[in-house]
């Protein structure tokens, strides 16, 4: 199992079909191999390979000092990672589930995010915090949260989420290499989806700052990131059948938002629908809508429309299909936009 997982060796060539989870594993593996100051730390990341097996095989390959099973203490994980980073290390922390990041919230927002700032650039804390996030897997309470805005609202943090195995592979390497702290949100509902990954792709540092056009189109811009990129692409397929050409912009990063990319797209299409799992209230969609309105007002044929979760705690698994933005809800939003 492990041997098979790590089958592509250090000099891979060409594209391989991998699950999203394995793409992250191999990205982490490349990062550990590239810099012996990097290390992985978290609960159950060692012999178990993490509850989602994302770190599977890494402890066997790199040893217990590089892939560290920590005490069950989230603030402790992030707080000691800060100390390690101050000493020149590059820790990658795994938080087991989105709903369990909050014991570490203080360390992330009051300490990690501000260390570079308050030391006037004299100290760097290149800590990555990996968080499996989002819903759709029928999980129990606290296992399906979308806390991205809480971090994006905090200056000093970079907040990113990949949507394809290739991006997952490229972005995790860029995150580990980044001198800034990165909140790396892994759409857990996508862990088992497969895609082509070019393991010989060179490092892409700009990837943490730049949106990507996942599908070109001319009639409406669908803005998404992480788990909802797939939803938006499905909606675009359906729209194509109805003769509507939708462009899908994958933000990749929630902080910083690549607003120029969104604006450029909206200037072409005149319409914008933002799709995310997190509640729409005070959310990323609100920010995108405001920025697009400021910078492309005269190009807009319709108000920017948001599709997302509700201002209610994440619902029980039996109801999550009504909470999550479905293809139908995206299509409904596009219809409303087109009707203006």
């Amino acid at each position, binding site marked *: 199992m492990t041997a098979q997982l790590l089958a592509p060796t250090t000099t891979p060539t060409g594209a391989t079909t991998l699950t999203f989870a394995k793409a992250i594993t191999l990205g982490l593996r490349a990062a550990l191999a590239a810099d012996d100051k990097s290390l992985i730390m978290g609960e159950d990341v060692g012999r178990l390979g993490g509850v989602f097996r994302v770190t599977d095989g890494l402890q066997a390959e790199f040893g217990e000092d590089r892939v560290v099973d920590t005490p069950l203490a989230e*603030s402790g994980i992030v707080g000691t990672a800060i*100390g390690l980073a101050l000493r020149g290390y590059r820790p990658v922390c795994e938080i087991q589930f989105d709903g369990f990041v909050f014991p570490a919230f203080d360390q992330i927002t009051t300490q990690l995010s501000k260390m570079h700032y308050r030391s006037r650039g004299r100290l760097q804390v290149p800590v990555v915090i990996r968080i499996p996030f989002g819903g759709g897997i029928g999980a129990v309470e606290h296992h399906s949260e979308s806390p991205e805005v809480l971090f994006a609202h905090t200056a000093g943090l970079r907040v990113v989420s990949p949507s394809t195995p290739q991006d997952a592979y490229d972005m995790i390497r860029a995150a580990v290499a980044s001198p800034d702290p990165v909140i790396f949100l892994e759409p857990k509902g996508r862990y088992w989806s497969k895609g082509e990954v070019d393991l010989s792709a060179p490092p892409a540092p700009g990837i943490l700052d730049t949106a990507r056009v996942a599908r070109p189109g001319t009639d409406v811009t669908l803005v998404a990131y992480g788990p909802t990129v797939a939803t938006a692409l499905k909606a675009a397929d359906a729209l194509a059948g109805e003769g509507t050409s939708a462009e899908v912009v994958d933000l990749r990063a929630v902080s910083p938002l690549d607003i120029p990319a969104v604006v450029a797209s909206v200037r072409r299409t005149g319409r914008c629908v933002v799709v995310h799992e997190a509640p729409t209230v005070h959310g990323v969609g609100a920010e995108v809508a405001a920025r697009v309105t400021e910078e492309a007002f005269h190009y807009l044929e319709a108000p920017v429309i948001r599709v997302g979760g509700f201002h209610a705690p994440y619902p029980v698994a039996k109801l999550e299909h009504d909470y999550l933005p479905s293809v139908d809800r995206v299509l409904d939003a596009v219809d409303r936009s087109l009707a203006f």
Partner: protein
Amino acid sequence: MSSRSTGETGLVQLLDPEGARVTTPENESYRERVAHVKGDDLRGMYRDMLLTRRFDDEATALQRQGELALFAQSRGQEAAQVGSAHAMAPQDYVFPSYREHGVLHVRGVDPVDRLRLFRGQDHGGWDPTEHNTHLYTLVIGSHALHATGYAMGVQRDGLVGTGDPARDTAVVVYFGDGATAQGDVNEALVFAAVNNTPQVFLVQNNQWAISEPTTRQARVPLAERGLGFGIPGVRVDGNDVLACYAVTLEALERAHSGGGPTLVEAFTYRMGAHTTSDDPTRYREREEEEYWRRRDPIDRLGALLRAEGEWDEVWAAGVEAEAEALGERLRTEVRALGAPPTAAMFEHVYATPHATVADERAWLAEYEQADEPADHETATEATR
């Protein structure tokens, strides 16, 4: 309510409150550790404590004059700070909270730099790597974890148990009795214990966390807290500079040699207010303050120096003059610390460029350049 946590029991003591040496069978190993601390060393400690107090007084005065937003005095805790700091090697790394002016003084952090934060001129104020001394931390207890992580890094760097006193490195973290109730301090003790970090947790039990006595934080002497984590704990008379030095030296030796972390509880007293915005008369008795005034750490060492014929009037006058000069320097240089340029608020938010910061910085610069909003468009933008 248990009084065990507030009592002066089980303290390592080498000097009694009158400044006489204490010679008991229990403190023999500590006496051996300070056997080499003589005339100049003792006078050096006295000087550091006196300058720390002068720093406190001057900063308090500056706050009263409106020159500082806030100040937290170390008055009464000079022995715990100066004694422990004297035990450290230059390569040891220190994580202070916000009251460790005596420690920062010994580590060589410039006194003006120490006040930049309190003046609202900087969130930090000095280069931590220059003195192996981190910035103040204001979120109670959070730096205990940074210290532990840093110590884990030291361990990985192979700088523990090398046998070379110039290389073996330890980390010392300071926090108060109130902080021991924080989750982060407890998590730090867990991480330190399971990793056997080269570390000293130095609790200055000054008996008050703003208005709350230590009994509101713990029912046992704080040093005993270490035991449940598997970390040895020592209680020391925090107003006895020699004992604080000896106990920290022992803890650092353990850390340097790979023996792991130690929790030191320095039992002391915060003689001033919590900060300049606090009113201690609302929660504590004058008699208590009087009692501790008679146990002043500086007087205690002064008495020892006099009793042992080490007091030198010329030297004492020199230290006084130094304190005067320090006061004068603070008065002029702190007042001269102006506001940084507006753009400074956008600097170092990230180590690499960030579009949102760049946009807002450019917007503010433009807004500030335009004398007044000339047209409708600028006026709308100004509400951003």
